[in-house]
């Protein structure tokens, strides 16, 4: 996906529209909040205004280790997967969040996996016989699916939608990957919510406070610092910063390296590295309470080894200082001094490390708030937001979140022109006009990057596409207006338009290292296939999309040329109008039917009735379509060029597609697009 060419003018509608198309009746109380963490994940609910609570699995465990095992025939998730890790380090995937939205070249941290880049998409080779390569998105989807099932068991029925949290610092590619994982898991993703914002939501609502808060979030693999203001029912993110590749896992690795060195293992085996890492994690946790710990590590040949907290602290000090530096930068961005804050909230299991608490207290000049379990606070906030978005009558705050990294375009000389600065409140749009440098220039490459560095090559490349058909104009006369639209999930759509001719192109930015839309669709369908009964749901969705498309195409044609009697005689018109209202009625009846029940036979009956309505409408409007086609051809004989006829026909086809896509009736547009 190095280059995206979109040449027809319908592109804007075809591509940009589906992001907003989600017209579905809401299901109050059936929203769930998911904290999709690097080392562990949780799901929580807060139905109909209830206090949030995290959900446990059948064994009573609330924490789902973010580990997926591909070692056996069946995919195994969570604690059982973890148990297979020591034996099959390369086939049991943990900390997959670090790979989300990344290309092979971006992976600079150590890991036990064999990575393969296929068509720019990073995959993890988890099996040779049979060959199996999985993308990080699919691995994440396994985790989400497990949590969804847990919630369904608790709710005693289907989940309507989910709020999934992401580190505030996640860039567009990482967010897009997370959203895709949600879709593959069969979840309607209401919103991606920044983890610190979720934490603040959990605290803020509980206590009804007003003021400015810093959220220090150190998880397994990511670090975020956010400064938020809460007042008058609005949460405003003032600044955010962090490091999407720094977390407790690094503490483990530092300590593991130390253990291996003490064991005198210069070139340890993979197994030994893995054992050392697992031991290091356990040691780190115990050293939060004890000053020193004695352990036996037989696989490393270490017996009765003493490790002190001071040793651990010395090892992690450089990492801890990196977080403090980011805190100071975020305060500066927010235009605040530490003394002006009203509180500091700790989030993430790694904030249990005493040295971290100490440094945070020193930096912000006050002891941090820790009333809510730092492992659960993010899931609590996500559940509250999910409850609000599911349509519950819950007094909610409005979240005004920000984009964490600047968005820009590469210009001459590889310099980045910033279009939307970091920490701008989302949603937001911005426009910039670019011009041609020579009369010979009829195309323009639009290279979208995200980051703070001056040169494009030092930033994250999000997408590259080419605007074609710029008219030949003297230098600096062509005007290409590029619009960036960031939605409330901080996902980007870029539109480019040549102002003289109106040539327009749009691309919903598909990150260079993400899965293609087709692949996500395929995976969505596969996941539906998994779930037996969902086959009929898919049929229904497709029937609905198809009928919606035909209704709109016919309605549009009637609106445009229906007044010409030779094209549409009164009798035909009457028949078409009748068929249209029957089709509308079938849509309405279907919604009512499916809302009340979810049995397979009802779903199939609904799909069949939609298909019947579509076939009838197509049959009745067929003569009208044939006459329109004939007219276009006749127009051609009357002196128009072949090109123009083709263009006219293409336009007609495009119109129909466009109509289908902008249909408010089609709720699954973005899941079953063309």
């Amino acid at each position, binding site marked *: 996906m190095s280059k995206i060419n979109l040449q027809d003018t319908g592109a804007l509608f075809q591509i940009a529209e589906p992001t907003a198309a989600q*017209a579905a009746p809401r299901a109050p109380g059936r929203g769930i909040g998911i904290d999709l963490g690097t080392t562990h994940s949780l799901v929580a609910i807060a139905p109909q205004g209830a206090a949030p609570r995290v959900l446990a699995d059948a064994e009573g465990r609330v924490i789902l280790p973010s580990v997926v095992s591909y070692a056996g025939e069946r995919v195994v998730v969570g604690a059982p997967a973890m148990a297979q890790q020591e034996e099959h380090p390369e086939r049991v995937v943990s900390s997959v969040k670090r790979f989300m939205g990344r290309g092979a070249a971006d992976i600079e941290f150590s890991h036990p996996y064999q990575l393969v880049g296929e068509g720019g998409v990073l995959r993890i080779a988890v099996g040779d016989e049979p060959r199996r390569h999985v993308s990080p998105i699919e691995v994440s989807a396994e985790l989400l699916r497990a949590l969804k099932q847990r919630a369904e068991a608790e709710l005693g029925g289907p989940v309507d939608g989910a709020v999934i949290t992401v580190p505030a610092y996640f860039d567009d590619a990482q967010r897009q990957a997370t959203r895709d994982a949600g879709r593959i898991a069969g979840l309607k993703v209401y919103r991606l919510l920044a983890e610190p914002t979720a934490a603040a939501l959990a605290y803020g609502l509980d206590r009804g406070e007003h003021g400015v808060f810093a959220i220090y979030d150190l998880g397994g693999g990511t670090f975020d610092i956010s400064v938020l203001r809460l007042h*008058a*029912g609005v949460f*405003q993110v003032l600044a955010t910063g962090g490091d999407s590749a720094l977390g407790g896992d690094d503490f483990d690795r530092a300590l593991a390296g130390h253990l291996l060195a003490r064991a005198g293992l210069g070139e340890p085996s993979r197994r030994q590295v893995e054992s050392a890492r697992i031991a290091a994690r356990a040691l780190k946790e115990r050293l939060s309470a004890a000053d020193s710990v004695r352990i036996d590590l037989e696989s490393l040949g270490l017996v009765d080894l003493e490790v002190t907290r001071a040793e651990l602290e010395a090892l992690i000090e450089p990492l801890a200082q990196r977080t403090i530096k980011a805190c100071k930068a975020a305060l500066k961005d927010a235009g605040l001094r530490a003394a002006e804050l009203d509180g500091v909230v700790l989030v993430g299991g790694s904030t249990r490390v005493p040295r971290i608490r100490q440094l945070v207290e020193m930096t912000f000049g006050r002891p941090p708030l820790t009333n809510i379990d730092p492992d659960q606070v993010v899931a609590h906030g996500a559940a509250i937001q999910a409850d609000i978005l599911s349509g519950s009558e819950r007094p909610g705050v409005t*979240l005004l979140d920000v984009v964490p990294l600047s968005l820009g375009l590469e210009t001459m000389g590889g310099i980045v022109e910033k279009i939307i600065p970091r920490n701008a*409140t989302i949603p*937001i*749009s911005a426009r910039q006009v670019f011009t041609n440098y020579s009369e010979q220039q009829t195309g323009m490459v639009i290279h979208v990057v995200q980051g703070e560095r001056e040169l494009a090559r030092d930033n994250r490349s999000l997408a590259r596409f080419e605007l074609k058909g710029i008219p030949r104009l003297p230098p600096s006369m062509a005007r290409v207006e590029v619009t960036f639209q960031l939605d409330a999930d901080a996902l980007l759509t870029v539109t480019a338009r040549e102002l003289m001719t109106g040539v327009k192109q749009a691309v919903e930015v598909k990150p260079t290292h993400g899965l293609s839309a087709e692949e996500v669709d395929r995976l969505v369908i596969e996941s539906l296939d998994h779930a037996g009964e969902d086959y009929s749901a898919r049929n229904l969705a497709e029937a609905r999309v198809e009928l919606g498309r035909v209704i709109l195409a016919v309605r549009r044609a009637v609106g445009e040329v229906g007044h010409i009697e030779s094209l549409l005689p009164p009798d035909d018109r009457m028949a078409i109008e009748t068929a249209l209202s029957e089709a509308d009625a079938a849509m309405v009846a279907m919604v009512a039917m499916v809302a009340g029940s979810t049995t397979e036979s009802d779903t199939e009956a609904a799909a069949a009735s939609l298909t019947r309505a579509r076939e009838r409408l197509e049959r009745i409007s067929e003569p009208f379509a044939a006459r329109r086609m004939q007219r276009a051809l006749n127009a051609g004989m009357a002196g128009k060029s072949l090109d123009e006829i083709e263009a006219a026909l293409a336009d007609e086809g495009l119109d129909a597609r466009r109509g289908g896509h902008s249909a*408010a009736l089609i709720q699954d547009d973005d899941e079953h697009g063309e």
Partner: protein
Amino acid sequence: MTDADYFGLLGVERRWRLDRGALERNYLERSQASHPDGFIGQDSGTQRAAMERSSQLNQGYRTLRDPVLRAEYLVKLGGTDLDSSDPRTGAPKPSQAFLIEMIDLRERLAEGDVAAVREEIEARAEQALDAGIAALDRGEVAEAARELVARRYFQRFLDEVDASEERPT
């Protein structure tokens, strides 16, 4: 597509001197009313409209909150777009004398007089902004545009000084 007038959008008077309290209040109130979160489950047109209105509010708030962007925006409403190079409606070209002065300043900087030059330019940038605002208050958009363009030159100069200081030598 034309920009909605951000002052109207945010319910504050169209002039540089700003009722900050009203801006904050109206921004939060109106953002709350139009945030896309309030429209999940509605038809795509409504959702899109909410996103667009929220985008405008956010963009407007960002512009009006900042003293420089606010001044430049008033000039834009007056018919001169400082981000454009169009000879008629774009940024006015600085005078020859001004450009020569800038070259002199650069030379002084190269001679190593960083602190003093910096201080002087900071003061000049402030003066230019004040003069631009005063011109806006008098309704003299062309004059305001000239001052604000000068301010941009000074600002770019300062940014370059900062960048060169940060660069390891």
